[in-house]
């Protein structure tokens, strides 16, 4: 059964220094509030896993939380580069960042394998790409039935996954709607998980095929209204595209980024 916790308590209980942490949400429902709480608690040496690192990992990398990044597309969607990620990779600031780089297809298959309790994922991928040359976690096997060469990657099994959803009910069941990305797989693949939600309702009324996480696979439910901003929550608020555009100038400059961090993360309380 999931427990209802404050964001501060959920992060301090479930996220530990050195953990492999996945904050997922494919453009939609990105758990920014939880990422900012990890920054405020100064949890370090994390291996951050995410298909599209987005602004949230740019902020966490710039704030010094990360030792390693496992990812498949590291940009500011529709805008340009992630400058904090680039400075960590290109110049080792604020700390050197080890990277393990995949394609989207590989990450999606690896999360699904993790959710299924499998050690690895097989798929028709990476053919003719240089990525296997720079990532020893990309290997090839032959199909035992047809002999076809297939790519293999280890399953993703994060120590803790964090996702944001629209709502949970009093019993701690969670409903996710709209573009659902890899949230379900990320939650099921992880040893521990935290789900932040816009609101608690007495009862969920999901359609027959809705994406529901039963309370017995969720560890912590945290009420965090607006917790996905500046990304969006279908049915609650739209994507703040202007913030994504503005991030380009904020993140380009180290000092301006640090001032932003003081004002918008360290300087805010977490009384959500």
């Amino acid at each position, binding site marked *: 059964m999931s427990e209802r916790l404050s964001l501060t308590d959920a992060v301090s209980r479930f996220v530990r220094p050195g953990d492999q942490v996945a904050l997922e949400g*494919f*453009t*939609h429902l990105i758990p920014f509030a939880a990422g900012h709480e990890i920054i405020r608690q100064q949890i370090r040496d994390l291996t951050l896993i995410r*298909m*599209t690192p987005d602004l949230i990992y740019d902020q966490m990398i710039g704030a010094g939380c990360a030792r390693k990044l496992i*990812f*498949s*597309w*590291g*940009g500011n*969607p*529709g*805008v*340009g*580069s*992630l400058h904090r*990620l*680039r400075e960590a*990779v*290109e110049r080792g600031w604020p700390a050197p960042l080890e990277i393990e*780089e*995949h*394609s*989207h*297809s590989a990450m*999606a*298959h690896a*999360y*699904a394998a993790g959710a299924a309790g499998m050690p690895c994922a097989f*798929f*028709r*991928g*990476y*053919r*003719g*790409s*240089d*990525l296997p040359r*720079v990532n020893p976690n990309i290997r090839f096997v032959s199909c035992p039935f047809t002999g*076809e060469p297939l790519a293999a990657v280890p399953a993703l099994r994060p120590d803790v996954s964090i996702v944001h959803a629209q709502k949970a009910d009093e019993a701690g069941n969670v409903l996710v709607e*709209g*573009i*659902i*990305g*890899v949230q*379900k*797989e990320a939650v099921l693949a992880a040893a521990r998980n935290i789900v932040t939600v816009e609101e608690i309702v007495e009862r969920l009324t999901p359609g027959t095929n809705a*994406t529901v996480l039963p309370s017995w696979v969720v560890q912590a439910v945290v009420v965090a209204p607006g917790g996905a901003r500046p990304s*969006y929550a*279908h049915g609650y608020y*739209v*994507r703040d*595209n*202007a913030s*994504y*555009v*503005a991030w380009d100038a904020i993140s380009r400059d180290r000092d301006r980024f640090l001032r932003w961090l003081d004002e918008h993360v360290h300087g805010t309380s977490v009384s959500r």
Partner: protein
Amino acid sequence: MTYTESEMMTVAAARALANEDICFVGIGLPSAACNLARLTHAPRLTLIYESGTIETRPTVLPLSIGDGELGETALTTVSVPEMFQYWLQGGRISVGFLGGAQVDRYGNLNSTVIGEYATPTVRLPGSGGATEIATSCQRIYIVMRHDSRAFVERLAFVTSLGHGVTGRERRKMGIGTAGPTLIVTDLCMMRPHEDTCEFQVVTMHPGVTRDQIRERTEWAVQFADRVGETPAPTSSELQALRDLYARTAAAHGAGTKVRQTGDRA
């Protein structure tokens, strides 16, 4: 009606799409071209975005690959693993649109790094869906601005396979899909030579000279035996494109400009 090089490129790319195509759409120029095609000559064109939206019909261009507009106007939305497993890997996509920081004469693409991988001079966004889009879609259209730093002799890194380093790698690897069959730039249209698979210029946009194309291509670019002229954008194509950009700017708010190029960092 006068028009820009960028508008010519978008219109030329849009014209390559047909009603029966099932198209995997990237953000930026591909998204503009695909939606322009849908709003003009190919209203039944099926658009799929990698965030999981199937048969999406946005009225404005999304800034990201997973904007709410895409889900709200889609026939259905599936999870990202399902998108890559059943729909892309399952061979259900006819056209994939790709771009990158660099392309070579065989349509191989780099969107990963400039310089050495471990110590890059420029760290680019990386593959995203591109690596498997390049081999799973029945054919690939490449849309890129023509520039000698982008149209290079040798890629710093192969993110996505075109026709390989010799033009023959797809067959050697047993890859059954066609790979890149078209490159659209702001100067010209290129198609692979039927024997060598080396891309050569097949049409030049109005007013463009061979010397301009040579100057902006690092490799010794070849021209087809007969090079035609790309028809200029019609006033109705330009109007539809400009209306689409105007609706997009109004929807995303002041200061938000949807990039018209690919993933150039």
